[in-house]
């Protein structure tokens, strides 16, 4: 009773206590259109923007604005809790208590010396109430669940479906693979299935087919996991003639991959890890853990509603983009002078608490500038960047206006949020995307200001054009006739080991011009990668001659190289070719890689810091433990 009442009041509370938030919507909104709040929703949920007349949805949205915001702020909500419990050493009991009292706190003016920002907590309130009112956890969860289910999720799901068919894929029947018949041969025939479920066996995500229809299959999966566990053992995988089934448990989540590809178990597990990270990037590890601690059979789909598309996108990307396999980032080849001047532009446009400024074009890195102090203690892992790139790529919503969204970088810190500002510099083409990461939740204005500076700087240099013209290069530029394709990943040189791991690779050209052939070559690379990096029997070199091509993989202390030759190449000429290739890469190094990512210093402003914990004397410690000194 009480909870229900409270929740119905929440929208009001949000508006009252957090004037800055709706404001920031408006701020963003005035740039574009009044539809922007929806864009934000869409952005957070990974949906594309409604193109057509969405008045009905729009209206309903208005009605459910409270919950909408609530859903919108889902991530930041959990962040609020997070920031209060960032201290990894923090006593969980204490955390719970704190969370439980968030509601009350929000009603009281918060002394600003205390690290918890009152505004933040205010908007935390709805969710905090749902998730952490320990006294009546179950009821609240149940209630809130129904609450959310009946209102915005349904609306959004509806919108999503229409959008999916209407906007993103014009002309295709509205039947998405989420509606697939899971008993059909075609469903079985998928090359790779991925399932995510909770320890209670509740479906969270399935790559193909509706989770509800698959709930019994997922139930069996969980039964297998717990059965083996009950024998004081852990299930890893099942092999049949054509399939590999790989199980991975991550906290309260179980991830399962069912693959017909030739990939190794290790590689499939790495992909599941990415899926897990992507979920974490939306919710944080701590909040996922907490949710299931509170209620074992919680339906996590409530919190992930709409984000299936991000996971779908990730899995498609993992199957085509070697960045994931190599755990490295690819840079768009660019004249070093141009790249330098772009970096300088980023370097100049700073504001307190800004930690990463990144320019992206064509899903490749253009320039990156990092905060000095932050990067000294932890490095930006390629995997984190991949998740960001996927997020940007998975949603066309980012193409309009500016996005300000909380995001967790799981490898940097699985329990904390960054605030990502995402905006394209060249609408409507939308090639060049700017990504600014701040640790300050309130920094929207100042970060948006940075964007304007960057925009001006880039325009002044007339750089956009040059970037738009920049292309992936052809292997023919290397000048070795038998060489068809390659992937080259240099290892960090010791003195700047904080550097982002990168790789370079030309376009796939004939005979790898069809989707099938590209997939086949990628499979071969995966096979080489799995052999050469085998956990138990790693190798130094592989020379593989087959009917359609000859492959050579080579790992040294300085680099890792995968090459593909025509099948008739001799061993002598292959070795010759590699010598030439390495020389060519050396020559082109400046163009292909970001050799020394520039740094800036935006010493965090203590009063603004959102990573600060309980404040006071604790702050420093919290900052160090929770953020800066991650391994």
């Amino acid at each position, binding site marked *: 009773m009480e909870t229900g009442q409270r929740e119905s009041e929440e929208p009001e509370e949000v508006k009252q206590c957090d004037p800055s938030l709706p404001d920031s919507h408006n701020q963003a909104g005035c740039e574009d259109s009044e539809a922007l709040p929806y864009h934000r929703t869409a952005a957070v949920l990974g949906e594309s923007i409604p193109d057509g007349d969405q008045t009905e949805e729009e209206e309903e949205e208005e009605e459910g604005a409270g919950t909408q915001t609530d859903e919108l702020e889902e991530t930041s909500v959990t962040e609020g809790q997070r920031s209060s419990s960032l201290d990894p050493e923090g006593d969980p009991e204490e955390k719970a208590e704190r969370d439980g009292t968030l509601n009350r706190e929000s009603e009281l003016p918060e002394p600003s010396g205390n690290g918890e920002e009152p505004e933040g907590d205010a908007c935390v309130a709805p969710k905090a109430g749902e998730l952490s009112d320990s006294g009546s956890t179950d009821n609240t969860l149940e209630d809130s669940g129904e609450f959310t289910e009946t209102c915005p999720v349904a609306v959004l799901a509806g919108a999503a479906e229409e959008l999916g068919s209407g906007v993103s894929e014009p002309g295709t029947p509205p039947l998405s693979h989420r509606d697939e018949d899971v008993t059909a041969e075609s469903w079985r025939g998928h090359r790779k299935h991925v399932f995510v479920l909770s320890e209670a066996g509740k479906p969270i995500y399935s790559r193909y087919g509706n989770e509800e229809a698959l709930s019994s299959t997922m139930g069996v999966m969980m039964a297998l996991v717990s059965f083996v566990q009950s024998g004081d053992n852990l*299930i890893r995988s099942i092999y049949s003639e054509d399939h590999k089934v790989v199980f991975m448990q991550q906290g309260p989540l179980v991830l399962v991959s069912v693959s017909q590809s030739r990939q190794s178990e290790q590689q499939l597990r790495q992909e599941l890890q990415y899926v897990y990270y992507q979920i974490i990037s939306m919710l944080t590890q701590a909040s996922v853990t907490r949710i299931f601690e509170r209620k074992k059979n919680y339906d996590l789909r409530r919190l992930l509603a709409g984000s299936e598309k991000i996971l779908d996108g990730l899995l498609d990307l993992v199957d085509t983009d070697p960045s994931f396999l190599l755990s490295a980032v690819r840079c768009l080849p660019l004249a070093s002078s141009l790249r330098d001047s772009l970096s300088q532009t980023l370097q100049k446009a700073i504001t307190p608490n800004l930690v990463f400024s990144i320019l992206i074009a064509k899903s490749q890195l253009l320039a990156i500038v990092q905060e000095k102090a932050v990067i000294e203690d932890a490095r930006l892992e390629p995997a984190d960047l991949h998740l960001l790139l996927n997020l940007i790529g998975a949603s066309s919503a980012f193409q309009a206006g500016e996005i300000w969204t909380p995001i967790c970088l799981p490898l940097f810190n699985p329990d904390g949020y960054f605030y990502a500002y995402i905006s394209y510099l060249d609408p409507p083409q939308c090639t060049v995307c700017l990504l600014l990461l701040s640790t300050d939740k309130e920094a929207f204005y100042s970060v948006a200001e940075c964007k304007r500076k960057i925009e001006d700087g880039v325009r002044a240099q007339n750089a956009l054009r040059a970037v738009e013209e920049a292309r992936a290069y052809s292997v023919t530029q290397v000048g070795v006739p038998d060489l068809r394709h390659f992937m080259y990943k240099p290892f960090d040189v010791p003195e700047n080991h904080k550097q982002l791991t990168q790789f370079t690779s030309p376009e796939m050209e004939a005979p790898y011009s069809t989707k099938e052939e590209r997939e086949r070559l990628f499979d071969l690379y995966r096979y080489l990668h799995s*052999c050469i990096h085998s956990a138990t029997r790693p190798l130094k070199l592989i020379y593989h001659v087959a009917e359609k091509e000859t492959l050579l993989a080579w790992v040294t202390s300085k680099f890792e190289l995968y090459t593909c030759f025509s099948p008739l190449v001799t061993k002598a000429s292959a070795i010759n070719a590699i010598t030439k290739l390495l020389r060519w890469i050396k020559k082109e190094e400046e163009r292909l890689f970001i050799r020394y990512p520039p740094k800036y210093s935006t010493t965090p402003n203590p009063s603004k810091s959102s990573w600060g914990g309980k404040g006071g004397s604790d702050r420093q410690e919290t900052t160090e433990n929770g953020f800066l000194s991650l391994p």
Partner: protein
Amino acid sequence: MLMISPRMATGAQEKQYPPSLLNFFVYNPKFGPKEGEEEKKILFYHPNEVEKNEKIRNVGLCEAIIQFTRTFCPTKPAKSLHTQKNRQFFCEPEENFWMVMVVRNPMIEKNNKDGKPVVEYQEEEILDSVYSSVLQQCYNMYKLFNGTFARTMEAGGVDLLKQRLEKFFYRYLQTLHLQSCDLLDIFSGISFFPLDKMTYLKIQSFVNRMEESLNLVKYTAFLYNDQLIWSGLEQDDMRILYKYLTTSLFPRHSEPELAGRDSPMRLEMAGNLLHYGRFLTGPSNLKDPEAKFRFPKIFVNTENTDEELHLIVYKAMSAAVCFMINTSVELTREFCEQLDSLVGPQLTLLASDICEQYSINRRISGPEKEPQFKFIYFNHMNLAEKSTIHMRKTASVSLTSIHPELMKILGDINSDFSRVDDDEEIIVKAMTDYWIVGKKSDQRELYVILNQKNANLIEVNEEVKKLCATQFNNIFFLD
């Protein structure tokens, strides 16, 4: 004896445990479909001491795993389950009859800081392809001596089947030696004796004469030095019979020819001056009035004619001949005496002929240098197998002369070969700088390990070319 090395004193030593057999069971899900009757499904369970509920649980897990994988491909269910502590291998050799082998992963026991032992499982050490083959071999060996499950069911129902499984596997499982299984178990090939044409013809005419004179003989096989020269059996039957002969029967009968001059065996032999022939199966001494004339029964051609045969193995010096006779014929003392007096002298003569020829050939090919390489060759068409890596196959262990890590890399390459039908060549350089070459062409597979650590790819290629030219021009006469 009580000396303790400083290493041990600090507790830094590690104890290694090789993979070992945890469970082995045979079940049929149709035999106890109702709840509460699950025990009826179980036809054989090793170790038998395991508690009933535990057995039922383990069988249940296998059923669940197999059922689960049918969700994704109804016709090709699970073949193995990997867990942290063990691997389970599934095989359905006859419809609804499942054989399961559970192998514990190798472990390393370390002492932690407090001196307490901590066990670490090495999860990636066991090769699926090797142990799946071992499981299949278990069935094949069972079938050789007992016939199919279905046939036994017809003959005497579940009870007879259980009895036979118990009787066979009780002993057989003790001979598995899982720690030394490798690539050769996948091939399960036959080593052929290299021979010149003349001698080969002599052997063939010997076989023909014997079959004619003894006229009861259905099939004959001839081996020298544990290597096959001639066989009338179907390939797959010969393959398993060969395995039995070379890993079980022959090693159990040590060579009296090699025994010391004054050993009692030698004296016994002296009584029979005509020849060195003797029965390895059946009566050990024909002169013994108590001698029994019972021979092991084997089942061949189970797919079609399903024949049940007496297996007579008769050996003189290094030459062994197997005569297989339909079980409808009763073998008597007279028959055995006739066989002994007919085959004994001729086989003795033939054995010394082969021996002489063999040493001439060896002399021609020159004294053997320690080669820079070791290799394994296998031909899928005739099952011919040759290994210079395995020093000696015995009943207990197959000794290899190379590091087990390299053997596993060979296994990895083999798994890759088995995925596609195309010809392939793979050259890899291991972390230890050994070069390993795998070649597959037209049903033949060759694996070479080169101990030239400073060689480059081109030099390695040259070495392998040379090896192919010298080793594989005339060795395999059946090619």
